[in-house]
């Protein structure tokens, strides 16, 4: 009985953790390309979910069309955000940029509230909601969707960053922006790319989680912070450490909520965040040198 319960909490923790990982990687990609924490990242998660809802209900699109549509529109919002709010800054200091992303996040959330109202909305699961039994625990088909899509995105990400020239150029920007410019990399274009990738990933995360948790104009705040927490655990890497960070966070949160009290669910994430910041600010797996420029 106890074991089944723990298995159950772990399984659902892993799928929430996968979502946190996706959002966290979005944070890391922008951080590595620009040196800023994009606090509007959570809003793309919210936009993904709510835009899918609109595509389904207002445009009557089938799900397979609604999802790419929602991702595309969220990405356009990401591009506009970079173009209108980030790029025009002449002398961008990190603190200015961070505050701008917070402002952008409040703006996007406010507009979303006007468009979709304050109610929570649901999106139907991708393939029914007949539970699947695994050992003594059960998971929903949506959990499998989440795991599969997360895995695919992480693999594509890996291939992009390590096996394409464009991806290598983007990594080069994060290591040494000045040298990157000198070998002909258009750093500002790479910054735009980073916003494109991150907003698309955020939107996907928001879409695949929406059938489980419901969605509303303000889900981005909490999901964004959890994703940020995952990225911090992972030392702001856009690779596997952030994925592990997300999974650790998801599982601990789920176990804590199940075994202690669900009231502490969000507190657990922030306790972990604080502990990491105090003890290992370079992330759980990072080396102590912080050489990122």
């Amino acid at each position, binding site marked *: 009985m106890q074991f089944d319960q723990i298995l159950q909490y772990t399984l659902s923790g892993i799928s929430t953790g996968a979502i946190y990982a996706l959002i966290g990687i979005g944070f890391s990609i922008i951080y590595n390309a620009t040196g800023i924490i994009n606090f509007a990242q959570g809003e793309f998660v919210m936009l993904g979910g709510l835009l899918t809802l609109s595509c389904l209900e207002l445009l009557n699109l089938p799900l397979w069309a609604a999802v790419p549509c929602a991702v595309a529109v969220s990405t356009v919002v990401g591009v506009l955000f970079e173009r209108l709010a980030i790029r025009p800054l002449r002398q961008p200091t990190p603190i200015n940029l961070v505050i701008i992303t917070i402002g952008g996040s409040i703006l996007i959330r406010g507009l979303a509230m006007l468009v979709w109202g304050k109610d929570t909305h649901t999106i139907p699961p991708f393939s029914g909601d007949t539970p699947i039994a695994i050992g003594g625990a059960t998971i929903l088909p949506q959990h499998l969707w989440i795991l599969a899509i997360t895995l695919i995105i992480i693999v594509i990400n890996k*291939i*992009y960053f390590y*096996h*394409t*020239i*464009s*991806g*290598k*150029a983007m*990594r*080069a920007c994060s*290591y*040494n922006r*000045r*040298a*990157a*410019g*000198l*070998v*002909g*990399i*258009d*750093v500002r274009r790479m910054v735009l*790319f980073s916003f*494109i*990738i991150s907003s698309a990933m955020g939107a996907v995360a928001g879409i695949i989680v929406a059938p489980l948790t419901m969605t509303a104009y303000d889900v981005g705040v909490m999901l964004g912070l959890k994703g940020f927490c995952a990225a911090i655990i992972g030392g702001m890497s856009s690779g596997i450490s952030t994925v592990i960070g997300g999974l650790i966070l998801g599982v601990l949160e789920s176990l804590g909520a199940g075994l202690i009290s669900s009231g502490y669910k969000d507190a657990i994430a922030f306790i972990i965040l604080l502990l990491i910041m105090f003890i290992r600010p370079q992330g759980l797996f990072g080396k102590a040198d912080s*050489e990122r420029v």
Partner: protein
Amino acid sequence: MLEISGITQIFGGVTALDTVSFSIAKGDITGVIGPNGAGKTTLFNIITGIYRQTAGTVQLEGKDVTGFPPERLARLAMVRTFQNIELFGTMTVLENVMVGMHTKSSSGLLACALKMPWSISEERRIREGAMKWLEFTGICDLADHTAGSLPFGKGRLLEIARALAVGPRIILMDEPAAGLNSQETLALSLLIKRIRDLGITIVLVEHDMELVMDICDRIVVLNLGRKLKEGTPREIQESPEVIAAYLGDDD
């Protein structure tokens, strides 16, 4: 090839460069020398678009490139290396050079997303091209090492390999021999001559007089932000003004 006219740079109240003009002929190795504080590095930073000068213009192959950012200059085939080598520390040696070839890759983000296999085959082509430059600079045995782990001398060679991978017609080197031992300096001078033999114009700022006198076709001497003298190594060595600037005036 490169025409510098009337470059003036004023930092606050200090005139770092005062109407400096000279031109660099295609295929030459030109040395820019001068005592410390003469404005050599400032001049380099202006030419390569890192600083914006107070006045004056820079023309590259007849085109006015004044104030162009470094990445545009790189696309126009002008690159530079740094006195304190600037590498992508956590990437491998080979990847560093591959990034240098980035401008020659046609696959942007969309192309990557849409035709991944094609993009990967292009990556293979670029990998081979990058290997060629590592061989040229003699560090291909280090291809898989992390750039940050290289000893200083090898790092310098890597920086040169990466600059060459951009496909430059002119390359500016800021104190390429700084921090190198005499053997490495000798190898460097041979390398620079081989780069020139590829048809690449070279401009270097350098303190190592032996190196400068050995490899340079022409030398420009700066002192206190002004051009003091310009000529062949022999003319420079025999010039009383230059000797006075370096050794102090007898008067």
